[in-house]
């Protein structure tokens, strides 16, 4: 069953990379290359599923497995909430040796009951990890029984770590929402301006830079999937008029399936960078008008864009001269690559290279278009090479995630976090201004001069 779902997850006509593959390659999936023993980096499918679903803030997220899966990972993501806190609580069955021998179903059922009784969450997502998958715990049946008994949705998320990468886990989570949540409830009202935003996880409150703009246009986010989401909203998501996919590769299947099932058109866009932000607003407006929203939305959108762009550029112009020609090495995944590249170029910075390990062919074409044919596109950069590049002063700043933070810092190179552990919101016009401000503060920080200066005993002519 899971095998079939994994195979389906890999068959994605909406993904350009996938279309270009032979049947054989497609079966192998999109992440087999990354899983080299002794040379792999990155999260597992469970990690990916949790990243995609945990931002549903009024649900409890119960991890069925031994301590490593939740004990080592909870309390580490900064997906922000505007209300409920239950999603942050780390729930796990913490399977013991006895559970492994006798099976963990009973403990799981009791754990679900404890959560249902004590917290009454909107729903409980139950994550199946490797060990219960291996010993054959029938999580599906436990969840069905618990749903009936406790009167709230208890949803199994069958994405044990060993089935593949984080990216696959994202997809499997999307599939869970499609199969078990979306379309299970009806909204109280609908408007011609209802959209879903898919693949935006409200890291550091990114969504809150976007929502005020949509509010000004009268556009309603029916469901966010899944940043700062409520379970009920996602259950009603099938009534939206248009879908925007933000983190393209992982969640495009989700959007395509919604198009098939509910005839909701979608587009892939980004909230990072001024021109991408404007393009996203334009596209949302266009889709909604195509679907029957009054046409004045288009002109209102243009007016808003003009005003916002003007304001953003006015604030950014202060930094433009200070950042002109500064060299950036960008090491991140997926949609963020091209979208941040264009954003940085807009302020006159030179992107000397970017990673494309999670990007589609379309993404790559786009990046080449932006950076020129001989742009340096990297897959996974081994830490050693990254160190060499930074130590060799090939870049003025590295923008990446926490994993490479200390490689950069040990070379005394400015570093800025643009991944999920960050504390600043960079989406939207405001976010872009804030990103530029951060880049400037990072590159021109007084610490660099001091830490790079030689020690007294290393100065030329220093006595012994």
């Amino acid at each position, binding site marked *: 069953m899971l095998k079939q779902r994994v195979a389906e997850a890999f068959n994605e006509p909406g993904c350009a990379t996938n279309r270009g593959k032979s049947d054989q390659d497609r079966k192998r999936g999109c992440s087999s290359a990354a899983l080299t023993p002794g040379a792999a*980096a990155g999260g597992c499918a469970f*990690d990916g599923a949790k990243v995609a679903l945990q931002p549903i803030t009024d649900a409890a997220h119960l991890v069925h497995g031994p301590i490593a899966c939740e*004990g080592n990972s909870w309390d580490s993501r900064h997906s922000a909430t505007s209300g409920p806190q239950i999603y942050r*609580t*780390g729930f796990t069955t913490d399977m013991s*040796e006895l559970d492994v021998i006798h099976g963990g179903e009973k403990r799981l059922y009791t754990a679900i009951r404890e959560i249902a009784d004590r917290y009454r969450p909107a729903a409980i997502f139950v994550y199946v990890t490797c060990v219960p998958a291996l010993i054959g715990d029938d999580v599906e049946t436990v969840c069905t029984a618990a749903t009936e008994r406790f009167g709230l949705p208890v949803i199994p998320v069958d994405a044990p770590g060993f089935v593949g990468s*984080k990216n696959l886990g994202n997809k499997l989570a999307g599939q869970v929402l499609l199969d078990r949540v979306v379309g299970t409830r009806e909204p109280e009202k609908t408007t011609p301006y209802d959209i879903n935003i898919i693949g935006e996880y409200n890291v550091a409150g990114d969504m809150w830079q976007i929502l005020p703009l949509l509010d000004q246009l009268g556009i309603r986010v029916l469901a966010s999937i899944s940043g700062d989401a409520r379970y009920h909203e996602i259950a009603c998501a099938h009534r939206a008029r248009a879908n925007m996919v933000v983190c393209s590769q992982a969640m495009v299947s989700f959007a395509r399936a919604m198009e098939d099932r509910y005839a909701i058109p979608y587009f892939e866009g980004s909230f990072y960078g001024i021109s991408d932000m404007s393009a996203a607003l334009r596209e949302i407006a266009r889709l909604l008008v195509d679907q029957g929203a009054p046409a004045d939305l288009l002109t209102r959108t243009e007016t808003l864009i003009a005003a916002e762009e003007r304001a953003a550029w006015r604030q950014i112009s202060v930094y433009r001269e200070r950042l002109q020609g500064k060299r950036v090495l960008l090491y991140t995944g997926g949609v963020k690559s091209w979208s941040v590249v264009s954003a940085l170029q807009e302020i006159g910075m030179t992107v000397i290279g970017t990673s494309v390990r999670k990007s589609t062919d379309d993404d790559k074409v786009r990046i080449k278009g932006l950076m020129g044919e001989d742009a340096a596109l990297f897959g996974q950069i081994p830490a050693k090479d990254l160190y060499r590049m930074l130590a060799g002063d090939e870049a003025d700043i590295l923008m990446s995630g926490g994993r490479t*933070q200390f490689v950069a810092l040990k070379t005394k190179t400015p570093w800025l976090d643009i991944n999920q552990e960050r504390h600043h919101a960079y989406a939207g016009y405001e976010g872009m201004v804030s990103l530029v401000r951060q880049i400037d503060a990072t590159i021109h920080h007084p610490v660099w001069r001091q830490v790079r200066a030689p020690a007294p005993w290393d100065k030329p002519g220093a006595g012994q």
Partner: protein
Amino acid sequence: MNVAEIGTKACAVNPLKSSPALGGALAFLGVDKSLPLLHGSQGCTAFALVLLVRHFREAIPLQTTAMSELSTILGGAENIEQAIGNIFERANPKLIGLCSTALTETRDEDVRGDLRSIMLRHPEWNDLTVVHAPTPDFAGSLEVGWASAVQAMIDALVREERQTRILRQVNLLPASYMTPADVEAVRDVVESFGLSAIVLPDLSGSLDGHVPDEYVPTTLGGTPVDRVSDMGASQITLAIGEHMRGAAEALERRSGVPFKVFDRLIGLEAFDAFVETLIGLSGRPAPEPLRRERSRLVDAMLDGHFFFTGRTAAVAAEPDMLLAVTRFLDEMGCRIGAAVTTMKSPAAAKVPCDPVVVGDLDDLERLASSGDCDLIIANAHAAVAADAIGVPLYRMGFPVFDRLGAGHRVSVGYRGTRELLFDIGNIFIDHQTEHQPYQRQDREVASDASVISA
């Protein structure tokens, strides 16, 4: 004195535990030019890696055998072989510390046997030592994995024979909760007696936050692999914490080195016992700077005991750290209102609190709240619990990811105990119980009429 009580919940809520495999990896990180390798799915490594990076604020070398569903069912020997090959080529470490996970232990793989035949097939890996530590995630926690890895290194590297004793050479087996700075502090004291210490593992060499001049894909600093085999020739093994007893016993079994387990090094009496042993071993009087440090601790205790008196603390930690911290607080006149730990252990039985609950941070929150506690001492995850009941949190243990310098804090020895005393004492000073002011009802009130005009 007390019975460790196992929580009755089926669901752990806000877990206190980190996994044994992470603990095993951490122990291997205290060996020079080493690279820990978790035998599991790549997520096992990714989570452990991120947590270690957040705690130490260092690049952490840690690899994975990247087990898939298929290789889990068919057996992981091939993945181990590939992983070692790739690591050998890319990083060329002296030691690979192979830690199993729940995933591979559930299938009950014969890793030891597999490893033997793999190494036989690859004479080119002659200079490479691969040590296997069983660290299933479903049994125990970080402390257990740490102890398991240290014992595995001793079993793999110390020859099974009585060796000529090297005078003045001692082994030191630090507890899993000791920071790099703790390890350094204790080693300095040992060496101040003219003794030479082989410390296993030695995080003070590898995770002390230095900036190397070039990129190193393995650990840089820590116990040299060759020195581990020399441990068989030491005069004695000094093991810190009950969880290190097994490793010390293994060393005695193999090479006849006697051992002494110190249940803690926090607190005046506790460190006095350690120093007495050093005096006996070295035949030297305690050096002047150490005497001075003791005197300063005594003075700090005199100055500080007022602020601990009558206060109540709730502590959640692994058994040996729990014992060390609660004993110290008890000796300072602070009551232990709640004690939560990760598993049953002989150390937990000596904690001055009844009961000691085997549980999670949700239990800590409940007990601290009902026990009217003034302070919580636990890892950084407990911030949520502390906020919820409005009690200050002093962060100790693993992980501490929201403070700078988690690895640089010293709380063992005379100096460390003094620093811990100041830190906690200052929190108590900040949060003194204020008297509720009493408003007199019949107080004379000033009015225009009360002013006598001149």
